[in-house]
């Protein structure tokens, strides 16, 4: 090979001026495969094994074995984006099926095949609202209980076009519809509300929010997730123009916050959608075939006029979510969602009977998680539970530190331990 290219050593092929050559070392030792595994797994083992009741935007559900076994098939895992659809029909069809799943769950006409996570999907929704609104809007409205982590991402996305992110009030843990009405003016391009919301409460009156948005020519963006939407009313039915959220609740166990951003919108925004879309077409033989479509929206064609800069997305996680959903089927999805309702409900009932606890803080049906009031400082309760091998967190709820508890199918069997730990460490100080 060296002869064919006419050099004595590969280094001669590097056309790099001496002045910027790197003459030193990185100082990284080479490891055998076995030594590498030992080293990296050793680092990972420095985190203790805890039972987590954490939630807060990253949720753990049991992922059936079939998801790993199928998604790890190398034809899927090691393939590239489907720019040559004739040899990537399999992945394209899986993504088409994922889009269809999201269409079914949201009721909206168009779903893309992924964003990075729920926060970046919300950011993209704000940019979409800015593009499609007839008159230029200056403001997106978000609820007071939107987690700072999500708001911060949204603010970065909103920064470019100069969109302001303003807060509307919540009351008793849910959207304060009158307060929202007072916050609205014609400069608002989008209203965001989540169900379940940041405190785990299912919003009772999103119809009213949809009406307010429609009255002010603002888009209504609903945040949710793929499991909750399996039982909740499809957001389209109460006026949602865009649905964002996390689809990684399917197919993706706890992985330090990896997400699968879900993005669906009304069909008339089709040509303004961010991200990749898979469509059905025909091949030259007249057979149905799938392809990435409407690519003139995307950065590699439209450059600075693209609907988004997104290129690499979360395709493999969309495949995993689709496999998980297929394995569950509609019965399984409904059962899983129901477990998210009854699990936290039962846990709250038991916590509420303990001396020094009120659970949940807010009325109304909850999904997966709830806020709990503690007589002792919430941070002390968290510390006490930690000593029992349980990880919980506090939430700053309008200036008050409260305990948050998340229960799913994977930690439900440890609720007894949670109750014991709370009883032991959480009573009045």
């Amino acid at each position, binding site marked *: 090979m060296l002869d064919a290219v006419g050099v004595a050593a590969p280094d001669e092929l590097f056309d790099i001026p001496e002045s910027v050559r790197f003459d030193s070392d990185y100082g990284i030792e080479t490891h055998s*495969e076995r030594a*590498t595994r030992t080293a990296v797994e050793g680092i990972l083992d420095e985190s203790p094994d805890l039972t987590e009741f954490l939630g807060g935007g990253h949720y753990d559900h049991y992922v059936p074995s079939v998801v790993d076994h199928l998604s790890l098939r190398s034809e899927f895992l090691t393939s590239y984006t489907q720019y040559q659809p004739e040899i990537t029909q399999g992945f394209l069809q899986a993504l088409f099926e994922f889009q269809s799943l999201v269409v079914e769950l949201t009721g909206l006409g168009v779903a893309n095949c992924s964003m990075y996570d729920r926060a970046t999907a919300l950011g993209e929704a704000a940019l979409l609202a800015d593009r499609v609104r007839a008159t230029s809007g200056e403001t997106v409205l978000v609820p007071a209980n939107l987690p700072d982590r999500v708001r911060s991402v949204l603010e970065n996305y909103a920064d470019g076009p100069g969109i302001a992110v303003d807060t509307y009030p919540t009351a008793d843990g849910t959207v304060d519809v009158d307060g929202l009405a007072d916050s609205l003016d014609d400069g608002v391009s989008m209203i965001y509300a989540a169900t379940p919301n940041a405190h785990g409460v299912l919003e009772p009156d999103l119809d009213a929010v949809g009406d307010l948005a429609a009255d002010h020519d603002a888009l209504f963006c609903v945040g949710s997730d793929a499991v909750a939407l399996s039982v909740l009313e499809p957001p389209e039915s109460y006026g949602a123009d865009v649905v964002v959220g996390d689809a990684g609740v399917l197919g993706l166990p706890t992985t330090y916050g990896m997400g699968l951003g879900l993005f669906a919108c009304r069909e008339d925004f089709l040509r303004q959608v961010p991200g990749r879309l898979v469509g059905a077409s025909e091949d030259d033989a007249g057979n149905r075939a799938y392809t990435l479509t409407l690519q003139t929206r995307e950065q590699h064609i439209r450059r600075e006029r693209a609907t988004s800069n997104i290129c690499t*997305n979360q395709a493999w996680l969309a495949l995993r979510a689709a496999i998980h959903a297929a394995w569950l089927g509609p019965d399984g999805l409904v059962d899983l969602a129901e477990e998210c309702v009854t699990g936290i409900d039962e846990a709250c009932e038991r916590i509420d009977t303990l001396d020094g606890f009120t659970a949940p803080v807010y009325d109304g049906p909850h999904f997966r998680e709830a806020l709990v009031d503690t007589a002792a400082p919430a941070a002390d309760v968290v510390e006490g539970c930690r000593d029992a091998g349980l990880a919980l967190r506090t939430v700053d709820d309008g200036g008050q530190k409260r305990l948050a508890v998340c229960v799913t199918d994977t930690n439900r069997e440890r609720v007894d331990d949670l109750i014991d730990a709370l009883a032991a460490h959480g009573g009045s100080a």
Partner: protein
Amino acid sequence: MSQEHRERTDETAAEPPHQQTRWYAGGQYEPLLSEKRSKTVAVDSSLPDDLTRDELELPAPAEPEVARHYTRLSQMNFGIESGTIPLGSCTMKYNPKFTEDVAAHRGNRVHPLRADADKQGILHLLYELQETLATIGGMDAVTLQPPAGAAGEFTGIQVAKAYHDANDDDRSEVIVPESAHGTNFASAAMAGYDVVELPSNDEGRVEVDALEAAVGPDTALLMLTNPNTLGLFERSIEEIADIVHDAGGLLYYDGANLNSLLGKARPGDMGFDIMHFNLHKTFATPHGGGGPGQGPIGVGSDLAPFLPTPQVRETDDGDGYETYAPAHSIGRVHEFVGNWLVLVKAYAYILRHGDEGLENVSETAVLNANYLASQIEYEVPYGPFHHEFVASADADAGDVAKSMLDHGVHPPTTKWPEIVDEALMTEPTETESKRRLDDLAAAFNAVAETDADALTETPRTTTARRIDQASAARSPQLSWQALDDG
């Protein structure tokens, strides 16, 4: 869409049972899950009726059918373990299998909202990786948070903006060479900048005179990839850096082509102030059919206070690691830390290779590209190139690509960069053997010798024949619900 549309027109073939996969001559077809067994269930929930849907209609295959469906789909898909994927700028290398096992280790199952003390393994790895990447890039500080290369660009531009703002320096333009990745333009526009396009010179590099004319008090940033998309090293990089810096602007390095520089040169040493790494390219995490990837960025010390939050550092007592918010942080670009498992795999890859292995990666990648170019008949107008080259087809590059599929290889990136007519942008990577490169060259050359008209009839041997892109875009059908309606 009616059944006929999915059938090859073969009058003699009996209609196969609906459930089954059908083979065509050279192709396959797998019904949609929704066409196999869908089920409508009434939603019976303990929630109030006004919150819940009445019913849910979705496929309900039993597990064996789930397994068969996705196994069949995988057979209709081409990955790096199926064969060579020499897509220019994509760095499709073989991904060592052991990294998947590391990613499956139980220690990855950690929730991001644990207290710092309860996620020391995670923070330790984040710290080691951010320090290692800083060393590899010649940068002072690294954030691992951006979940993809384009997200890294956006983050870097937001950091640059915050830096200029902190200096009360109002700048409105980002300069991007015409041959740059499309994401550069899109990321700059998303961050609210006007994009100024910079022409290339006759040698395919940045035209320094044009750069001097373009920079000024409005210049926030010049975005470059080096080697550039033609595989050429920007030899005037130090002069370019001086021009941009003298105008008060910053220099951004697009890390898409870093696979050619490991052990040889570092963006920080060339004068770059900000860079992103594409961990899914350079450090071999599988592309997963389009993602997830990860696009950490590195910056010089002046910019470090503006990086996203949280960052990770050693605790004062040196016994562990803690998160902190940089003093003037731009906030977050992902709710948590992006794609954690990609970070783990990249770290394992770097550790496995070490200095020697990483330098060997780049040497082999560059040698492979040069060897392949020497074996193909198409003209390669610009050089000397490094890890990738751009050949010029004497026929429609799109047709050339489709025709290469019939030779069992994935084609290169086509029709881009536009500076080369009918561009075939080719990056074989270091993981292809000489035998594979010879096969790839043979595919290029067989197509080069084929009549241009005949190329339009290809591919013939793939799962699907050539697909009607125009009608897909004209009448979009993006879900099985849309197929039912149509």
